[in-house]
Structures are given as C-alpha cells and as structure tokens.
C-alpha cells in the first residue's frame, strides 16, 4: 500500500489541529453583527467609548481594537480602563487602568496590554476608552452594526453597534485552556489521532478505489 496520501492527510490534519490549538486565541464570545463593519473617521479628542465584553478564558491580558491613526509629529494618548460589571451592566470594580501611547510613526490603533486578570472566565467587563490627546493626528476606529444598543456607548450615548476588537488571554488558546487538565489533554490528543487516522484511511480508500494494495 502506498503511504503517501494517508500520511499526508494525517499530517495536514495534525498540523491544522496543532496550529489552531496553539495559536488561535478564542477568549471572547463573538458578538452578533447585523451588517458589514464600517469605519468611524476623525474621532475627536475627548471622545469616550465604552464597550461591553464577556470573556471566555482566564488570564485576560490584552484588548486590541481595530483602528488606524495617521502619522504625525507627536505620540497620541488614550486612557483605558477595564471595569468588571454584573449582568445588568452595573459596575462591580475597576480591574485595570492604563494609558496607551501611539508612537508618532505608528499607524495601527490600539492595543491595551495589562497584567493578566486571573479569573476572567465568565466575567463581564466594560472597556472605557478616552481619546486624550491626538497630537494633530487622525484616529479612525472600526465598528460593526448590532441589533441591540446595550453594548457600546459613544460619549454616554448608546449605539446599535460595537467596536471591532480582539482579546487575548493567557488561557485563551486551546493549549492554554488544557494546560491545567493534563488527563483530559491526553484523552483529546488520543481521540484526535484516531480521528486523523480514520480520515486518512477513508480518503486513501477513496483515492485507491477501496483497494489498499493498489499503487
């Protein structure tokens, strides 16, 4: 039996699994958007955004907005605060505060990195973002339309949209989540290997007309 195809299929599946488990962070529940995202240009200094988010992994340590900033002579400054809320949106406590400085030659905006929040899974947060100083530069942020208006406010006014953003957490990837459960990790790896072998066998049989000896 020629081993080329089954080995290749097995390896492709294993690589896809390994890469997604090791590198793809899924620490946030995706928000339901109703239409294509759009860009808000020329955000003025002093504008305050608040964005609600529910985190699905422990160790939340970064919120990265999708936006851009024109090149300028001075750094721009944004004030950021992460506030834990209850289900109704009422403040429980301020979890992290910080300042994001966008360098004069930086055109992407913005990543808010902070000390990991240990028990962030299942918790709800409100990201408060204040554009403090733009230094004569133009800030644009991406928003996506949403059905409800309880997710985002701009200058305290609710909007039927949400900021386009990603989150990262120390336990945000599959590998990070399974790091604390070695028994389960071994079981899942074993089952995944059996699965890969089964798919490799099935595709190989398809390709060879159900005759494993055919070259």
């Amino acid at each position, binding site marked *: 039996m020629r081993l080329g195809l089954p080995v290749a299929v097995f390896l492709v599946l294993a690589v896809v699994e390994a890469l997604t488990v090791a590198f793809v962070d899924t620490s946030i529940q*995706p928000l339901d958007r109703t239409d294509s995202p759009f860009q808000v240009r020329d955000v003025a200094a002093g504008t305050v955004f608040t964005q609600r988010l529910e985190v699905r992994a422990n160790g939340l340590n970064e919120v990265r907005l999708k936006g851009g900033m024109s090149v300028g002579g001075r750094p721009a400054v944004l004030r950021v605060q992460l506030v834990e809320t209850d289900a109704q949106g009422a403040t429980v406590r301020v979890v992290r505060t910080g300042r994001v400085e966008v360098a004069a030659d930086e055109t992407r905006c913005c990543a808010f990195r902070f000390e990991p929040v240990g028990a962030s899974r299942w918790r709800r947060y409100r990201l408060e973002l204040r554009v403090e100083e733009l230094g004569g530069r133009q800030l644009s942020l991406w928003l996506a339309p949403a059905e409800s208006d309880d997710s985002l406010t701009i200058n305290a006014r609710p909007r039927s949209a949400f900021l386009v953003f990603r989150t990262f957490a120390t336990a945000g990837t*599959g590998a990070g989540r399974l790091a604390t459960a070695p028994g389960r990790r071994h079981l899942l790896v074993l089952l995944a290997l059996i*699965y890969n072998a089964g798919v490799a066998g*099935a595709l190989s049989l398809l390709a060879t007309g159900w005759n494993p000896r055919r070259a």
Partner: protein
Amino acid sequence: MQLALAAAAVVLLSRMALSLAIVPPWQQPDEPIHVAIAEVWRSRITGEGTSDRGREAEIIDSMIRHHWWHHYQKPLPAGPQPIRFVSTGAVVSTIGLDPESPSYAPPYYATVGWLLSLVPRGTVERDLYVMRLVSMLCAAITLWVGFLACRLALDELGVATVTSLLAVHPQFAIASTTAGPDALVTLAGALVWWQTMQALRGTSQFRSLALLWLVSIGAAIVDRLGVALLPIALCVTIMVSATRLRPRHAVGLVVCTVVAILISVGTIPAIRGQVEFSLRAASGPSALGDLDYIRRFVAFLYTSWWYSLGWVRYQAPEWWSIVTGLVTIAASVGVVRQFFRRGGATRETIVVAAVNLIVLLAAVGVVFLRLRVGPQGRYFFPAIVPSLTLLWLGTDAWVPKRYRTAGAVALVGVVAVLDVLAWTLVALSAYT
C-alpha cells in the same frame, strides 16, 4: 467497499467520543427534559415512590455545577435554587415544563427508563451519559444503513463518498451524542431512505413499502419530528406506484395508503397526540408574510445544519459558514445540472432526495413559522443521507469524469478540515 465503511465508522466513533469528552452534561439541546422524562419512567418501572420522579432538583443542581446558565448566557434565577424546571425563569420555555406530562410519547423514554432500571439508581449525569450512548449506537447504525442505501442509489465512488461525508459531517456527530430521541428518528429517516431505494431499485416493492411504512409510523409514535416521515412515505408510495406498478395496482395501493394514514392518525393515540401537539403548539399566525424573518429563519436553519453547539449559543465563525455556503451553492447548482444531464436512475434519486428535503422543510415551516422560534438544522437529519447524496451528486456534476476520484477526495477532505476547525475553534474554546 466494506473497508470504506469501516474507516467511516472509526471516524464517526472517534468524533462522537470527542463530543462525549468535550461537551459537558446538559449542553446538548433539551437534554434536561429528556433525561427527566426517562427518570420518570425508571421510577415507574422500579416502583420508586418520590415526589420528584423526574429528579428535576438533581438535574438543576447538576446544570448549575456544569455552568449551564453561563453557557446559556443568562443569569441564574434569583432567590433560592429552583427545584422544578418551571421555576427556572428565563429558560422555562426552553427546557420544557413537566416531565410527567403525557405529551411526551412513551416508547423511547420507557425503553431508556427500563435500561436505567437495570442498574441501581446512580447520578443523573450517569443516566445522561447512558442516554448519550444509546444515541451513539443509533448513529452507528445510521451510518451502516446509510451505506446500504447508498449501495442502491449510487456507484461505488458515490457510496464511499457519501458514507465518508456522513462520518465527517460537523453537526452529525454532535447531534448524535444528544441524550434524547432525535438520533432514533434520524435512524428511522435513514431506514426510510434505504427502503425507498430498495423499492425503486429492487424487485419486491410491496415488502419495501411495508417496511418503510412500519418505520415511519414507528418514528411518528416515538417523536414529533418523526411525524414528518409519514408524508415522505406517502410521496414515496405514490412515486413507486406510478413508476413500478400496474396502474390498477398503483391506484389501489395509493388509495389504501391514504385511508390507512387517515385511520392511523385518527385512531392511534400516540400519532394523533403528536400531530395535535405540533399543531396546537403552532396555533399562532404564520410568519410567512414577514420576509426578513423568513430570511433569518432559513439562514439559521442552514448554518445550524452544518454546525451549532450548546443550545445554539456557539456558532462556527463567519468565514467557516462562507466556505460551507460556497460548497452548498456549487452542489445545489450541480444537482440541477445533473438532473438535466443525467437520465433514469440518477434523476430519480435526485427527485426522491429532494422530496425528502421539501417535506421536512414544509413540516418545519408549518410548526416553527407559527411558533416564531428558530428551528435547528438537526431537524433535517432524518434526511441527512439523501442530503449528502445530493451534496455529492451536485459536486460530481462539476468534476470531469477522469478526476471524479480527486473530486470525491477533495470534498470529503474539505468537510473533514472544516470539522477539525469547528472542534478546535468552537467546541474546545467553549467547553475547556
């Protein structure tokens, strides 16, 4: 050919085992009420006297321990911990009301209750997993029956392709590990498809139609979803009569069948109860005029046919759905192409498979467009084998003859990779 079935069985079993290992208790749709009804039957069989025969308090306690409300994205009801499903507030209509209600047809629950009664009373989680294993067994038999049906409907390459597709279909393995009667109805649907093909390709039409009707009536008695198999059986009977029997026999058979349906719906309480319940539940005005609702209704039906997890709270990423959309659109256009290009047997297979889907769509539409609750794609699983048959035939229409094998490998490979991505990106992130 048997090797192809064996490989598909290994794939399906490993994926169902993955589902058992990853998806926590109560995370499959309606599991709490299904387990509670089975517990009621177990208590009846063992003669256990208790005020909570459905063990609702234990199930709710277990749901809390397994973060059900977190996954459902609703707050836990305020005040003391509820001990009955009706007191769970936000989710009351979702997880069902009363496990003692006679509206739940006994055959499935009594059988599972009897199985549970064979061992000493254990935790509700253990009973849940026993029910999940029963569903897995049904799914494994569905794969085998699907294989037998494909042998009658398709050539060798088609048989292996559709069997492999069933094994790697992202939602099928997940739905097949749900503690509930759905997997049994899916098996009944596969049996109906097998006997349809037997009636169309074989020589003993009467035997096949008799078996087909027996299975359809059985499915209708087991679960409301199974009622949809009755019109499918009627359509198949008409089709077989028209194409395979002498006109006099055909008319006689169809008339007898229609009379038999009317009598059975009117007199067999189990079937009448299922039909009445479905129509009563759907007593409101239909949303047929609301085009925006219809669009969302169909879109969700479609996306959740491919993938949906945890009481439809976890969906595949958008780009993932776009890929499945492209595969489906190509196959759908290809089916039309095949229909006009090919003659005889293939055209007949396409028509019967399409009838399966149309009848299920109509049944789902009649009930759910009135309920105004989004139905899930798994309600189409009684027709999963004909659906995948269409998927293959439609894809095959675009592939030059000498590359058919490569086309089959590519189709199964793409679905397998999508499945792997759904496990790693959605299931693993939701439940670990």
